[in-house]
């Protein structure tokens, strides 16, 4: 019986050999698949992610997002010392509900899994220490951002919703972006998923939609701020600032009974220069000019050259993680394919189907302030791994909507708006401030108040856009005042 006993010994070895071979398959060959399987192995993938301190998001040298150590299974807790003021730029990194905005856009870098960390990971294999993820330095300015949030939240006409965007026109660096009402991102990063789910549900049910990013991701009728685009198209097509246009108290476009009138209090004579029409915001002159001389194609072309109908993305954000909405000029053709002239007339004063995001408004102002060169907007200034910069932003020209002469003429006209026209609330002593107000109707709801503009001082060029959603009467005046405060903060 000894021979079969020995053979049984061999059989057992073969069986164990099969176990060994199969464990090799599962633990070596398939190891990476299993380890990183976020669908099925989510808990471990997540725990792995929280093994490492996530990098900070820094504004002006102080963190607006940081990770602190805890005793939970997930070793670190994400905190936002900047709170609600920065929520619509920094976003949040929750445990079970994903990440948004900068937290999402630079996730690989903050988490320390980006390719630039390869050296660190190799070093870790020897030292056994988990080195933290990289720090992300934003272009935001603390003073500008906090002024923008505070002035917007505490606006003097009680508008609950609104947005501010401020850019450095010479580079495209984002100086401030805020949207109200905002939310406290600290409540969305705690490790109790049930409480976070509840909080998210609450925010989603809020009629004011605090999670909506009105600065980048929403588009609104721009009202009279759109006249800047029409004026740019006119100047590009040979009209001069002092060319006399036909204005008057009302304009009835062909094919319609509807009469476009000026806003109450606007004095617009029959004959008015382009500059004066912009200064007093004369609807009839712009509508008539658009329908009778400019035409829909040229208007659309001008709007497109400023960025309408195109997906604008921030530098380093090819996938549009920052969720920038596309601004639209809308349809201006009738069913027969010909120009719908009543629609064109309304579009020329930023109504009908024209819709613009506050970011787009700021980009228009920035192009004008910067001599016609619209710089690509960016949020990430520097990426630091172990205090060494692995990325530093290089400004680049995104579009050239107008030439330098037209830009100079528009600057002059818009400065006149602030000094002598509807934009007086934005005046700053000793600074050239230009802009355009807007009051946009939207159905039966109260009007939106708008201001887009710029300030130029000692080579510094700041562009700004302010929206007060459904602010009603006085909205544009308050938006203009807030813009002035933001510009003042930016020039400090």
């Amino acid at each position, binding site marked *: *019986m*000894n*021979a*079969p*006993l*020995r053979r*049984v*010994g061999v*059989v*057992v*070895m073969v*069986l*164990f050999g*099969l*176990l*060994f071979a*199969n*464990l*090799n398959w*599962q*633990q*070596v060959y*398939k*190891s*990476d*698949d*299993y*380890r990183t*399987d976020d*669908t*099925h*192995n989510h*808990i*471990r993938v997540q*725990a792995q992610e929280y093994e490492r301190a996530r990098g900070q998001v820094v504004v002006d040298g102080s963190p607006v997002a940081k990770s602190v150590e805890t*005793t*939970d*299974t*997930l070793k670190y807790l994400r905190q936002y010392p900047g709170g609600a003021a920065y929520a619509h730029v920094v976003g949040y990194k929750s445990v079970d509900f994903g990440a948004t905005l900068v937290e999402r856009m630079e996730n690989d870098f903050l988490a320390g899994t980006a390719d630039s960390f390869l050296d660190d990971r190799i070093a870790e294999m020897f030292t056994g220490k988990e080195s933290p993820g990289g720090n992300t330095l934003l272009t935001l300015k603390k003073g500008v951002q906090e002024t923008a949030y505070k002035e917007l939240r505490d606006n003097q006409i009680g508008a609950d919703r609104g947005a501010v965007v401020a850019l450095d026109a010479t580079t495209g660096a984002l100086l401030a972006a805020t949207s109200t009402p905002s939310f406290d991102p600290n409540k969305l990063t705690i*490790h*109790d998923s049930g409480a976070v789910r509840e909080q998210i549900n609450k925010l989603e049910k809020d009629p004011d939609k605090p999670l909506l990013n009105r600065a980048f991701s929403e588009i609104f009728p721009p009202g009279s701020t759109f006249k800047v685009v029409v004026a740019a198209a006119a100047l590009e097509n040979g009209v001069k600032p002092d060319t006399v246009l036909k204005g008057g108290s009302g304009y009835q476009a062909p094919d319609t009974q509807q009469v476009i009138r000026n806003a109450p209090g606007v004095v617009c004579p029959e004959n008015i220069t382009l500059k004066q029409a912009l200064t007093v915001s004369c609807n009839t002159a712009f509508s008539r000019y658009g329908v009778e001389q400019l035409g829909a194609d040229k208007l659309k072309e001008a709007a497109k050259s400023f960025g309408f109908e195109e997906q604008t993305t921030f530098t380093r954000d090819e996938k549009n993680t920052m969720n920038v909405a596309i601004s639209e000029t809308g349809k201006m053709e009738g069913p027969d394919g010909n120009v719908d002239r009543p629609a064109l007339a309304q579009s020329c004063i930023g109504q009908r189907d024209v819709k613009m995001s506050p970011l787009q408004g700021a980009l228009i102002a920035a192009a004008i302030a910067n001599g016609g060169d619209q710089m690509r907007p960016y949020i990430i200034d520097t990426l630091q791994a172990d205090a060494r910069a692995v990325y530093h932003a290089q400004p680049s020209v995104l579009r050239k909507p107008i030439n330098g002469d037209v830009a100079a003429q528009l600057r002059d006209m818009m400065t006149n708006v602030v000094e002598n026209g509807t934009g007086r609330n934005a005046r700053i002593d000793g600074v050239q401030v230009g802009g355009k107000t807007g009051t946009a109707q939207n159905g039966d709801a109260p009007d939106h108040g708008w201001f887009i503009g710029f300030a130029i001082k000692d080579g510094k060029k700041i562009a700004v856009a302010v929206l007060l959603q459904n602010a009603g009467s006085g909205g544009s005046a308050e938006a203009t005042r807030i813009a002035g405060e933001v510009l003042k903060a930016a020039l400090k």
Partner: protein
Amino acid sequence: MTAPAVPMPTPVVTTGSVRRPRTRRNVELALLIFAMIVVALYSASVEAGMIQKVTPDFWVPIGATFVIFLGMHFAIRWLAPYADPVLLPAVALINGLGVAFLRRLDLGAAAAAERADLSPFTGDSVRQLFWTAAAVVGAVVLLFLMRDHKSLSRYAYTLGLVGIVLVLIPAVLPARFSAINGAKLWIKVGPEDDPFFSIQPGEFAKICLLSFFAYYLVRKREVLSLAAKRIAGIDFPRARDLGPVLVVWLVSLMVLIFEKDLGTSLLYFGMFVVTLYIATERVSWLIIGLLLFFGGAISAYFLGASIGGPFANFYDRANIWLDPFATADTTGYQLVQSLLGLGTGGMFGVGPGAGLPYLEDYDQYVLPAVHNDFVFAGLGEEIGLFGLTALLAVYLLIVERGLRAAITVRDSFGKLLTGGLSFTLGLQVFVIIGGISQLIPLTGQTTPFLSAGGSSLMANWLLVAVLLRVSDAGRTPVTLGSGGGGVVAPPQKLAEIPTEVVR
């Protein structure tokens, strides 16, 4: 086949020498201490991994197991002085790791802040410690009562009957007294969901049935070796001799169908076929056995697919095995989590105490049944392929030492009994570890000496007692007979003394 003189693990008396053969008990003690040091190091690194420091009382559970095994060691000195010196340390290593891993799970289930102060006398680890003590006492009692393993053959029929009854009780009992996770392998006492007490009678049935098989086959081996036809160089038995194989095959199929458990079924049948093969030296029995088993399993699969009913459970399990990720959230969950744990561990593991079998924040086990069926997956996440391979090597060592005892012992009954038990132990390890690593369909077997649970520990320690007893018999120098201590004789000659068996 004529075997040459059996190589002994230790040189026994050679010609002309008057030296008394060494018992090797001191080797056993040294190996045991080494095994316990390994377990203690593991426990220390568990605490370092989980509470960032090693508490002063980290050694308490290990110290307790050491005391138990030390008792066993002295019992062996007294009762089986010539027993194989590797068996106890190898088993102690695995059993000790089992206790330490359960301690690790206890720590994991406690709140992070309370871990450092968690008493070593709570939870599953201490229960396992008590079971270990009870099992070792059981093994010592068996060694004491059974001074000669051949005495077992006197109770062969009784044991055979007891074995059958133990196998069939859970099948006959209503599911609420016998089913855990779908497999009817238990006898439960107390509330259905949280039984006060539950035993797996099948664990004990192994030894009982093997005693009977060994006895039966020793008596019938001549008949069963008779060849009827020679096909492709292999002698096939006569049709009328197939009876017993078919009976065991049918019983195994009934286990598969009524106890809904492929593993147990495979275990009994494999145990019988291999004993049959050892007894008759006919490869044809292995071939017939394999054909019958796979035929049965494949038929059960297709019957499960077409008519369902009692075959449905097996069909479902086979499908989970084929593609666990297809049902990752429902029926495939356990296997998927097991694979993810193993894969996350990778080659070196995430380190003792650093795995995630349990999530404190959610108060739930990520890896279900990590205390028993999936203990190997839980360990695999933390000690990696290297650690698991070492563990497999220790299991293999136990099995091979068992087979070696079978080779060295002189009587046929002892050979069959020991060979069968050793193989069964190896097969059980294969079935459960193959199951949790997707090599074969998953079935609810315990991992010998490692899983939490009294039945399994008790039965496997009794098995070890038998191995120790037989190895002692094989290695004890023979003082009778001519030649003055000529121990080693051609084994087949010794095996041809059937009268010794039934005496």
